[in-house]
C-alpha cells in the first residue's frame, strides 16, 4: 500500500528550481532511502512534504488524502514526524521535556478544542495530564537508553545522543511515517551500526521510515527501496541492487563515491 | 540558584528594615515640631524647628525647564523669608522639590513622600494640569493645602476646598481672549495651532467657546503632538485657509518654533498667544519674529517696585528671568507665609486645617501680581492683561475681565 506519494512536485526559488516534477512514493512498512548528491533537493523535498515549505506546484498525498500546503503542525498531527539535518533540539529544555513536547498534542481533553481550555481544566485535574506525558516520554527515552539523562539539558548531551534524542522526540508523536534527515551524519562507524539497528527496531514498531543519507553502506544495508534525486529530479527508483547498477545513478555519483 | 535567591531576599529585607528604621527616626523628630494635623502637642513656641514646604513639578524630561523656572520662584521667596528669620522669626522654611517627570504616577509618589515622610505643611504646585488633578485629589483627601502656580484647567479648583491657584483659570483667560479678539481686534475668522496637551488644549477650548459665542468662527484648528518641533505642515495648511489671525496658546519653545517657521513659510497673518508668551525666553529663541504678536497675560504690574525688585533679584540669583508662572509661585509662597504666621501666632503650631482656612481668608494680598484675592472655590480672582509686542518689547494694552459674557476693561 502506498502511504505517501508526491505527484509532479515542484519547488522553485525565483529562477532556481530545487525540486522539479518529482514523483515520489513511500510504501507502507518499508524503509525508503532518499539519496543524491549535495544540492539535489532531498531536504527541500522533505520540507515540502512535512509542511515547512510550500511547493510551487504538484501535490502530496498521505494515506490517500491531499496534504499539499498544509501547515507543519497539522501534518505532524496526521502522523508524519521528522528529524532535521542540523539537529534542532530545544536546547534549554531538558531531555525529558524535549520528548514531552512531542507528546504535546496527544493529551488534553479534546484534540480539536482549544488547548487553553485544557490548561484551565488542568488546574482541577492536578498534574494528571503531566504524569501521563512523563510516562510516555520516559518510555521513548528508554527506547534509546537515554532514561538516565532525562534531567540533563538537551544542549549538554554528546552529539550522538542528540541525534537519538531528536528521533525519540519525533517518535513521541506516534507517527506512522518518520522522515530522518541524515541521521548518521557525523557519527563514527560504531554509532552508525547502532543507528541501523535502531532504525530496524523502529520499523518493527510498524512505522514507515524514509531517510536521507550519504552513508551508502547504511543505505544499501537497511533500505528496502531507494529513490535517487539529482538536480531536483527523480532519476531512479528501485531496490538497492537495482540502484547500484543504474547507469544514471553511477553517472550522478561519478567521482563522488567517497561521499 | 537558591543562594542567589536568598541573597536577593536578604538584600530586600535589609533594605526594608533600614527604611522602616529610618522612617521611625524621622517621625520621632518630626512630631515635636507639631507639623501634623494629628499631633496633640500643645503650643511650645520656643522649641519650634524647621518647617517644610513641598513642590512638585517636572524636573527632568521634556518640560524640565518649567519645573526649574517655577520652583525657583518659590525658592526665592523662601530664601528671602528665611533671611528675615523665617516664619514668625523662628521657623526656617525648607522647600522639598519632587520630580513629577510630567507623569501623574510619579506625581503621586511625590505627594506621598512629601505628605507622609517630609510632613510638609503645604504644597506649591504641581506644575501641569494632568499631574495637578491626580495630586489635587490626594491633597484634598489628606487635608493638605495645595496651591498651583500654573495648573490652569478650569476644573482643578473643583476638586475641593484645599485646592487653590495663583494662576487665572483657562476659563477666564479663554473668555477674555475670545472676547477681546472678536470685539477689540475685530477678528471674525480665527485660526488656531495648539499642542495636544492639557494646557494648550484647555486654553484653545476656552477661547473657541467664547469666540464663537460672540459670533466669530474658528475656521481652522490644527494640532501638534507633545515634543513636536516641526509645524510647517500645519502652518502651510493654515496659510492656505487664510484666517484673520492665528491663535497659538502654547509653551514657549513651541511658540518660538511656530513663529520662526511661519516666517519661513511666508505666513503674513497676525499671531495671538497666551500667558506662555510672558516668558522672556521667547525673545531669545525667536526675537526676530515676535513683532506684532498680541497675547493675553498677567496684568501689568511691571511698574510696581515690588515686581521690578522680584524680576531683578530672580534674574540676578539664577541667571535667567522669571516667567509669569514663576511669579505666581513666588506670590503663592508669600501668601502661604502670611497664612503660616497667622496660624502659628494664634495656635503655636502648624495645623493643616488651620493653614488652609487662613490661606482661604487671604484678602487683598499685595503680591507681585498686584492685589490677590481668592474666589469661593479657590480660583484666583483675576484680571487678564493684554499685550502687543513691538520688536521684542511687550506693550501693555490694558487689563480686562469678563462679566456676564461681556468684556470689561479694568482701570
Amino acid at each position, binding site marked *: 500500500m502506498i502511504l505517501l506519494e508526491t505527484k509532479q512536485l515542484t519547488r522553485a526559488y525565483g529562477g532556481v528550481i530545487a525540486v522539479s516534477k518529482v514523483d515520489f512514493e513511500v510504501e507502507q512498512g518499508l524503509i525508503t532511502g532518499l539519496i543524491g548528491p549535495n544540492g539535489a533537493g532531498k531536504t527541500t523535498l522533505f520540507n515540502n512534504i512535512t509542511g515547512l515549505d510550500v511547493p510551487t506546484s504538484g501535490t502530496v498525498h498521505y494515506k490517500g488524502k491531499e496534504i499539499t500546503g498544509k501547515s507543519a503542525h497539522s501534518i505532524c498531527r496526521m502522523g508524519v514526524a521528522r528529524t532535521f539535518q542540523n539537529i534542532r533540539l530545544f536546547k534549554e529544555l531538558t531531555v525529558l521535556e524535549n520528548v514531552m513536547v512531542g507528546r504535546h498534542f496527544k493529551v488534553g481533553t479534546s484534540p480539536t478544542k482549544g488547548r487553553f481550555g485544557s490548561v484551565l481544566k488542568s488546574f482541577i485535574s492536578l498534574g494528571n495530564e503531566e504524569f501521563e506525558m512523563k510516562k510516555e516520554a520516559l518510555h521513548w527515552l528508554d527506547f534509546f537508553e537515554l532514561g538516565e539523562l532525562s534531567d540533563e539539558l538537551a544542549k549538554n548531551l554528546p552529539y550522538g545522543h542528540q541525534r537519538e534524542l531528536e528521533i525519540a522526540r519525533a517518535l513521541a508523536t506516534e507517527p506512522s511515517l518518520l522522515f530522518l534527515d541524515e541521521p548518521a551524519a557525523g557519527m563514527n562507524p560504531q554509532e552508525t551500526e547502532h543507528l541501523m539497528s535502531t532504525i530496524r527496531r523502529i520499523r518493527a514498531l510498524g512505522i514507515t521510515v524514509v531517510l536521507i543519507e550519504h552513508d551508502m553502506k547504511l543505505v544499501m544495508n537497511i533500505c528496502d527501496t531507494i529513490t535517487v534525486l539529482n538536480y531536483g529530479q527523480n532519476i531512479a527508483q528501485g531496490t538497492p541492487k537495482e540502484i547500484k547498477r543504474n547507469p544514471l545513478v553511477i553517472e550522478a555519483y561519478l567521482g563522488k563515491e567517497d561521499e | 540558584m537558591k543562594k542567589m535567591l536568598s541573597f536577593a531576599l536578604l538584600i530586600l529585607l535589609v533594605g526594608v528594615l533600614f527604611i522602616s528604621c529610618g522612617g521611625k527616626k524621622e517621625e520621632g523628630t518630626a512630631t515635636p515640631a507639631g507639623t501634623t494635623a494629628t499631633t496633640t502637642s500643645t503650643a511650645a513656641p520656643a522649641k519650634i524647628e524647621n518647617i517644610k514646604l513641598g513642590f512638585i513639578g517636572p524636573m527632568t524630561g521634556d518640560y524640565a525647564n518649567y519645573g526649574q523656572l517655577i520652583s525657583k520662584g518659590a525658592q526665592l521667596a523662601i530664601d528671602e523669608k528665611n533671611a528675615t528669620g523665617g516664619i514668625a522669626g523662628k521657623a526656617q522654611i525648607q522647600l522639598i522639590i519632587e520630580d513629577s517627570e510630567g507623569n501623574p504616577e510619579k506625581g503621586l509618589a511625590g505627594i506621598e513622600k512629601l505628605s507622609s515622610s517630609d510632613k510638609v505643611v503645604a504644597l506649591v504646585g504641581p506644575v501641569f494640569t494632568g499631574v495637578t488633578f491626580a495630586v489635587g485629589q490626594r491633597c484634598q483627601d489628606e487635608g493638605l493645602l495645595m496651591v498651583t502656580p500654573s495648573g490652569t484647567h478650569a476644573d482643578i479648583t473643583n476638586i475641593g476646598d484645599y485646592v487653590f491657584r495663583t494662576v487665572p483659570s483657562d476659563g477666564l483667560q479663554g473668555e477674555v481672549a475670545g472676547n477681546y479678539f472678536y470685539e477689540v481686534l475685530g477678528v471674525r475668522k480665527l485660526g488656531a495651532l495648539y499642542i495636544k496637551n492639557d494646557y494648550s488644549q484647555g486654553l484653545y477650548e476656552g477661547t473657541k467657546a467664547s469666540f464663537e459665542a460672540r459670533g466669530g468662527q474658528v475656521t481652522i484648528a490644527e494640532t501638534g503632538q507633545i515634543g513636536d518641533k516641526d509645524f510647517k505642515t500645519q502652518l502651510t495648511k493654515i496659510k492656505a485657509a487664510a484666517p484673520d489671525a492665528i491663535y497659538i496658546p502654547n509653551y514657549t*519653545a513651541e511658540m518660538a518654533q511656530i513663529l520662526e517657521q511661519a516666517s519661513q513659510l511666508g505666513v503674513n497673518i497676525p499671531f495671538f498667544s497666551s500667558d506662555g508668551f510672558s516668558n522672556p525666553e521667547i525673545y531669545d529663541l525667536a526675537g526676530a519674529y515676535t513683532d506684532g504678536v498680541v497675547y493675553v497675560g498677567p496684568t501689568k504690574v511691571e511698574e510696581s517696585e515690588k515686581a521690578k525688585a522680584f524680576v531683578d533679584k530672580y534674574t540676578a540669583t539664577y541667571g535667567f528671568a522669571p516667567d509669569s508662572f514663576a511669579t505666581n509661585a513666588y506670590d503663592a509662597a508669600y501668601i502661604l507665609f502670611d497664612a503660616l504666621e497667622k496660624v502659628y501666632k494664634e495656635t503655636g503650631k502648624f495645623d493643616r486645617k488651620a493653614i488652609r482656612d487662613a490661606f482661604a481668608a487671604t484678602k487683598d494680598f499685595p503680591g507681585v501680581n498686584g492685589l490677590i484675592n481668592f474666589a469661593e472655590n479657590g480660583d484666583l480672582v483675576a484680571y487678564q492683561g493684554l499685550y502687543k509686542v513691538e520688536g521684542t518689547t511687550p506693550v501693555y494694552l490694558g487689563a480686562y475681565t469678563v462679566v456676564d459674557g461681556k468684556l470689561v476693561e479694568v482701570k
Partner: protein
Amino acid sequence: MGSAAEFFQHLMNGLTLGGIYALIALGYTMVYGILKFINFAHGDILMVGSYIGLFVYNAIRGQILGFWTIIAFFLSMLVGMVFSAVLGIAIERIAYKPLRKATRLAPLLSAIGVSFILSNLAAWMWGTKSKKLEYPFNNAPLHIGGVAITPHQILILVVVIVMMVALKLFIDRSRMGKAMRATSLDQDTAKLMGVKVDRIIALTFAIGSALAATAGFLIALEIKVYPSMGTMTGLKAFVAAVVGGIGNISGAMVGGILLGLIETFGVALIGIPYGLRDTIAFAVLIIILLVKPEGLLGKAEKEKV
C-alpha cells in the same frame, strides 16, 4: 489640499524632514548591520554632538553674517562630529563590548541605560532650556513659484546628499568598507580572513555617531538644542531604518525620505488631524512590515532547515 504650490511646499517640507531622518537612520542601520542590536543611545549621541558644536560655534563665530560664519559653522559641525565619534567608540567599549556574547536583550538594556545617563547628564550640565543656534547665513525664504524654500532646507538637502553619497562610496569601494560588510555578514569568518573586527566595530560606531551629530547640528538650527532633542527624532529615524530594511544603507535613505513624506502628506493630503500623524507613521510602518517583513530594501533571510 489646494494648489500646486501648496503641494510642492509640502513636498519640500517632507523631503527635508525625511533627509534628516535618513541621516540619523544611517547610524542605526550601520550599528544594527554589524552588531544586530538597537543602539538606543544613538539619539543622545546626536544631542551631545549638537551641544558641542553649538559651544564651539558660539565661541568662534563673529557677529556679522558672512563667509566666516559659514566656515565657522562647518568647523563647529566637524568638531561636534569628531566628539560624537569618540563618544560613540567609548560607549561601545564600555557598555556594549562586554555584552557581545550575552543575551540579545542585554545590550539593548545597556543602551537604554546609556541613553538615560547621557540625556540627564546633559540636562544637569547644560540646563534644560533650549539653546539657540544662530543661522550662519540669512535664512530668509526664497519664493519660487509660491513655494517658500529656506536656505536652511537647501543646506539640509545638500549635506544629506553629500553625506550619503560619501558613505555609500566608502562602504562599497574602500577596503575598510569591504571589511565592514564582511564583518556584518559573519564576524567569525571575517576574523579568520584577517579583518580586525574590534576595530571595524569601533569604526562603525564612529561613523554612525558622527552622522548623528551632523544631523543634530543641522536640525538644531531649527529646533534648537536641548537635552531630549534626540529622543523622538531618533525613534522616528529608527522606524525609518526598519522600514527601509535595517542593516541596509540604501534602505535607510529610502526609509527616511519615505517616512518624512508620509508624515507630511498623510496629514496634508488625506486631511487626517495632525494629532494622529504619529499614528499614520506607525501604521504605515506596521503595514510595510507586514507586506515585506524584511523592510523595503532588506534581504529576506530564509532560515535553513
